[in-house]
């Protein structure tokens, strides 16, 4: 008999699940099993999840991960089962791009990290990644100890919701996907005319069901024009006086809010620009947090012409905006403009030093965020304090 350093524990996959075969490698389950997501997901699938082109990420309640499948086009909601306890990243993960590529079996130059989200229940960080050699998609997790692994998509429960389209329209890009209280919102662009669209998917998200699509029109403060063509680059859901909005950020870089209540499918939704952050920037991520009774909107951006007109030490920079600007009376052509000559100004609009070199940011709580930070071409992953 050989000595054994540990018991080899057999892994029983889905043995406890009541399931039946839908296709050879897909099972349909009752929604009440495991993590109770009955109010959020319907017609849940198990096994056989794949992505045509993986994109943006965000977390909903109960460890529900939303993933944009750009070439689907679809929104996939994954029950990660990752509901805690909270174990925050204990130390910075250096060269995370090298390590993510390695667990995907490739060199770092062969892998693109597309987006990042953090599960606020567990502290685990999720990265969507793309391997160039075979266009393979992966979800990669980084736990509190910095351990990195690829999520096995054959081993998750999910629903895939195709984005609504009308005759002749094709979704070319999905620039964001977010949970709200009563629906999931995605933003993107359709067709060759590059029009900006908002997609509304009702809860519970239902496998193979769809939702509504709206067109958008936004006043671009820096342009002094109304635009339909600029796509929303990032957005967050927003409530004001009991009404639902999304707050979106566009290239060059107006922040605008769009009403979502009582909108007919196919309608043109007119956004109200409330803040202009300055030209030549492409927003990447957005979130809000509260500090000392005040709510702040944080967004990080990629500066288009950093080399020509640098704003700071990096093309990647970020800002926080007092959320009271969203209810401002001065909008559109009179919207507040960030003073591009200073780090702060007007009052309530501040460049955040901690966001220089930030490629992606995600809020962990009102005191900390996760930052995927550029390090001379490589990437580090760290927790950073919110001011």
């Amino acid at each position: 008999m050989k000595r054994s350093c540990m018991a080899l524990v057999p892994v029983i996959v889905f043995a406890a699940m009541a399931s039946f075969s839908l296709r050879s490698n897909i099972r349909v389950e009752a929604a009440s099993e495991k993590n109770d997501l009955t109010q959020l997901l319907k017609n849940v699938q198990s096994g056989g999840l794949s992505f045509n082109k993986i994109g943006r990420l965000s977390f909903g309640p109960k460890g529900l991960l939303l993933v944009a499948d750009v070439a689907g086009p679809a929104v996939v909601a994954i029950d990660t089962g990752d509901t805690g306890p909270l174990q925050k990243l204990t130390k910075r993960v250096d060269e995370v791009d090298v390590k993510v590529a390695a667990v995907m079996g490739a060199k770092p130059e062969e892998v693109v990290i597309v987006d990042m989200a953090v599960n606020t229940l567990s502290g685990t960080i999720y990265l969507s990644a793309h391997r160039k050699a075979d266009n393979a998609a992966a979800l990669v997790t980084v736990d509190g100890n910095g351990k990195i692994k690829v999520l096995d998509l054959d081993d998750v429960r999910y629903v895939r919701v195709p984005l609504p389209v009308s005759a002749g329209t094709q979704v070319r890009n999905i620039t964001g996907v977010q949970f709200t209280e009563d629906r999931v919102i995605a933003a993107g662009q359709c067709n060759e005319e590059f029009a900006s669209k908002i997609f509304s998917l009702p809860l519970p998200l239902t496998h193979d069901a769809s939702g509504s699509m709206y067109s958008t029109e936004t006043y671009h403060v820096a342009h002094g024009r109304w635009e339909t063509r600029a796509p929303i680059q990032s957005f967050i859901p927003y409530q004001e006086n009991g009404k639902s909005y999304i707050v979106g950020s566009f290239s060059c870089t107006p922040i605008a809010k769009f009403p979502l209540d009582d909108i007919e499918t196919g309608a043109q939704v007119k956004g109200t620009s409330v803040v202009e952050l300055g030209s030549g920037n492409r927003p990447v991520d957005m979130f809000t947090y509260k500090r000392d009774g005040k709510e702040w909107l944080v967004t990080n951006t990629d500066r288009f012409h950093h080399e020509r007109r640098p704003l700071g030490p990096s093309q990647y920079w970020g800002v926080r905006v007092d959320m009271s600007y969203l209810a401002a009376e001065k909008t559109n052509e009179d919207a507040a403009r960030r003073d591009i000559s200073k780090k702060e100004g007007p009052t309530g609009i501040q460049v955040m030093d901690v966001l220089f070199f930030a490629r992606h940011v995600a809020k962990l709580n009102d005191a900390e965020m996760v930052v995927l930070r550029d390090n001379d071409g490589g990437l580090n992953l760290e927790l950073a304090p919110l001011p």
Partner: protein
Amino acid sequence: MRLSICRNGFLYFLCVSVCAGVACDRTYQDPIRLGETDTVTLSGDGDLKIITSLQSVSVPLSLLGPSLPDTIDDREVGREQGEQFLTVGIETTHETEFYPMTGSYHLTGTHFVFKPILPFVPEQSYIVRMMDCGKLLREEPFLFRRAEADAPEIESIFPLVDELPANHLKFYIYFNQPMQTGDIFDYFSLWDMTRGKLVARPFRHTELWSKDGLRLTLWFHPGRQKTGVNLNVELGPVLTQGHRYQLRVDASWRGMSGESLGKTVIKEFVAGPADHTQPDPSDWKITVPRKDDSKLRVTLAEPLDHAMIETSFVIEHLASEEQISTSITVELNERVLVFTPHQPWRSGHYSIVINPLLEDLSGNSLERPFEVDLQGVALPVIGNRVEFTVE
């Protein structure tokens, strides 16, 4: 022992040779074909082995640590436990740090099998590490070599015409196989032949692929092509009227076959006057079908957006209100649309209904010009129907 994979014809080759430790030479013996197996088995026999694909790595229990039972029945093994005995990862310059691929482990009774979640990548060197309770016993490198495959080709770049408006917006590039995606814009450049220099940051860095991955929509940055917009003011427009340009696609860009384009692909054009005028179907010339030629021809006043043409036209027989099924081609420098009916025309009046969003090369649509304040501006009303009669 060492593993490597060699190329022969259209097969994936896995070559396995044995030597002590990691510092073995790279002389391979004649290969032995393993046929359709997807698993490389480390047998320690020193023979070169050939397989057609590679999905997993199998190691005899005798090569692993004594702590691993070798008489156990078939079963899956948890990842953390499996990684105590066998890991597979890429060769890295970071000798002190080894990050194994994530995958599943399986005991067959005689072998320990690792299957990665993402498949192995051809032309990538991997290291197989065999351990006993995490203590390294031996490691073997191998190279999974790609089968010979066809190089990708660019089949066409639209617009085909060699004069483009100075406020031109986008190209459609057709490939004969899907390309490797992610960070693709380093493969594109715009050479100003008149100035003899590259144009700085001409493209919008958003990858827009068709669903089959064979068509890329490449945009000039709209913020630079639109008059008065900040990037246009600060950086200037991408194109200057009268200048000649080369849109270049770099030879090193690889397709999904793993092969590269092999040569730089160039589309040469001259920048003509900027176009701020909406396309107007009343300016188009209709050549109606005849008995000896069933094709309906529409001569345009200017080339239109290549991709939008496909879905922007509906032909109706007015009396019956039936839609006529046709195929559409574009001829003569993209100035003539040719509609070929799938059924013979009936005599009577017809209407061509055009999608108001149909654009010209500068983004001007029937609905609105590309450059306009949408607030408080009365846009010209341009009809989107053209009628014709078949005798």
